[in-house]
């Protein structure tokens, strides 16, 4: 790990810890309205002011960060598991199966996934609860974003399939499940880890895009995407700089992930 990667990991840990502490120590709920101070500027009581409904921006930022930072990795985990299953099966079986599954993966990769995502997200029930909307949004991201990772996993398993230690294990009569779990999976860990790290910032950014388009997490539950909708009401970059804090935090997190994904991990 280079010093830059250590620094990025430190930033991520710092943001995660600050979020947990803020959520634990906050006395204000993200949905509590202070009706006498809509659009308030930062003060001692409200560090980042209040939004147009009079809700404390700092509380919303803390909860929104917690939502985005905890659910994007879960979505990435879902997509990596799907990629490992689909890509792993294709690479391990080889031949016709590999060609069929690879064609299916190529098909999914050709689809404009933001178009597909907004279509499926918009077709959810209108009376969906905020908690369910957040779960569904990130589950959708995870279940639609596996294809690129599956292609990488398939290529890795294909090359491992014909490696000497696998041929030796197969020749000594090792059953398929044992080959997969004991011999292949441990060797796939670096690839799966890299795909996980690549997927997290992608899902954070996609959720932010969906949120700004009004198709992300339902109100009043905050996420980075819904917090960024406040930028639409800005009249200039310097008019209310405290509204930019969620964006700064999001950029810091995404850049930190980019720095952690070193080129050797990506190529692994």
């Amino acid at each position, binding site marked *: 790990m280079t010093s830059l990667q250590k620094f990025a990991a430190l930033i991520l840990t710092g943001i995660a810890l600050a979020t947990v502490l803020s959520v634990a120590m906050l006395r204000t709920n993200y949905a509590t309205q202070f009706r006498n101070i809509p659009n308030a500027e930062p003060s001692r009581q409200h560090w980042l002011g209040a939004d147009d409904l009079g809700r404390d921006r700092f509380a919303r930022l803390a909860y929104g960060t917690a939502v985005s930072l905890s659910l994007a990795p879960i979505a990435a985990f879902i997509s990596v598991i799907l990629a490992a299953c689909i890509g792993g099966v294709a690479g391990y079986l080889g031949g016709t199966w590999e060609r069929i599954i690879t064609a299916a993966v190529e098909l999914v990769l050709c*689809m404009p996934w933001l178009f597909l995502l*907004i*279509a499926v997200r*918009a077709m*959810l029930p*209108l009376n969906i609860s905020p908690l369910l909307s957040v779960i569904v949004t990130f589950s959708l991201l995870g279940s639609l974003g596996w294809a690129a990772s599956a292609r990488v996993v398939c290529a890795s398993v294909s090359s491992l399939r014909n490696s000497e230690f696998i041929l030796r294990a197969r020749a000594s009569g090792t059953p398929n499940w044992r080959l997969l779990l004991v011999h292949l999976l441990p060797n796939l860990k670096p690839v799966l880890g890299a795909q996980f790290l690549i997927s997290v910032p992608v899902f954070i950014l996609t959720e932010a895009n969906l949120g700004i388009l009004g198709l992300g997490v339902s109100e009043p539950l905050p996420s980075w995407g819904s917090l960024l909708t406040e930028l639409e009401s800005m009249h200039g970059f310097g008019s209310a700089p405290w509204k930019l804090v969620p*964006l700064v935090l999001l950029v810091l997190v995404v850049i930190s992930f980019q720095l952690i994904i070193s080129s050797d991990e990506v190529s692994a």
Partner: protein
Amino acid sequence: MRALIIRQLLAIAVTVILGGLLCAIFVRVAPGFDVDIQQLDSRLSAQTLEALRAKRQSSRNIFAFYGQYIRNAVHGDFGKSLVSDHSVRGLIAERLPATVRVAGGGLALAWLAAFSLAMWVMVLRSRAADIFAMSAASLFLALPAAVIGLACVVADAPPLLAIAAIVSARLFPYIRGVLTRTGNMPHVLAARARGTGELRILFLHVLPVAAQPLLAIIGISVAIALGADLPVEALCGIPGIGQLAWQAALGRDLPVIVTLTVLVTIITVTLNSACDVAAEAVRGQHA
């Protein structure tokens, strides 16, 4: 070459048909598909609500809906919008020019910016310039496309600048990588050792070899531009197909969504196939 072209055409046809079906299935299995936003309007009478439900029922069986859709599409009829009752073909024809202007202009600008920057970094051979350019690309990669679109609105800048910024941030690292790898090839090192100037090396020794991998990403860059076009058009108020897709998604308009998804898939797959054929032709010339 002919076999490759036939193979690519077949791949396009299969991808488009299956892609459209996949999109229709995804939308159909979403739990709220049967619910029309108009059904929540308390002013509507029971008969109107029943008529709205009947309208939805027509696309309930996804295979019947898609079979009918394909049959009509062959004759150039993509159905009617469930929201506006206008023909989908008319809606797309009306909005396509705006998208071509914004996404096409942004894409051209992105290629120009990314290519110029990568060539500048290569010719300059300065670590500081490289770090500066990569940091700028990383910053734009870390920003949601919608935020870049909003920044254009706030700064009163043309929306094609947003597309250019989003696409060039993705193109630059790739182009830089290709040029750097080619720049370290033995024939380039030999030319440099003979004292050939950097510009001459770039145009005579690097670009002809780098053309093939660069051709391969033209199709991908169009897909990135179309993906970025959706939030940019929606937020900048550009009446293009990105905005149409967003409005169709909000209005649960299945025929419009499926047609737009198929259209974008056709554009992406066709361009990818054309780039593969062109790259193969370049490889043939070099061989």
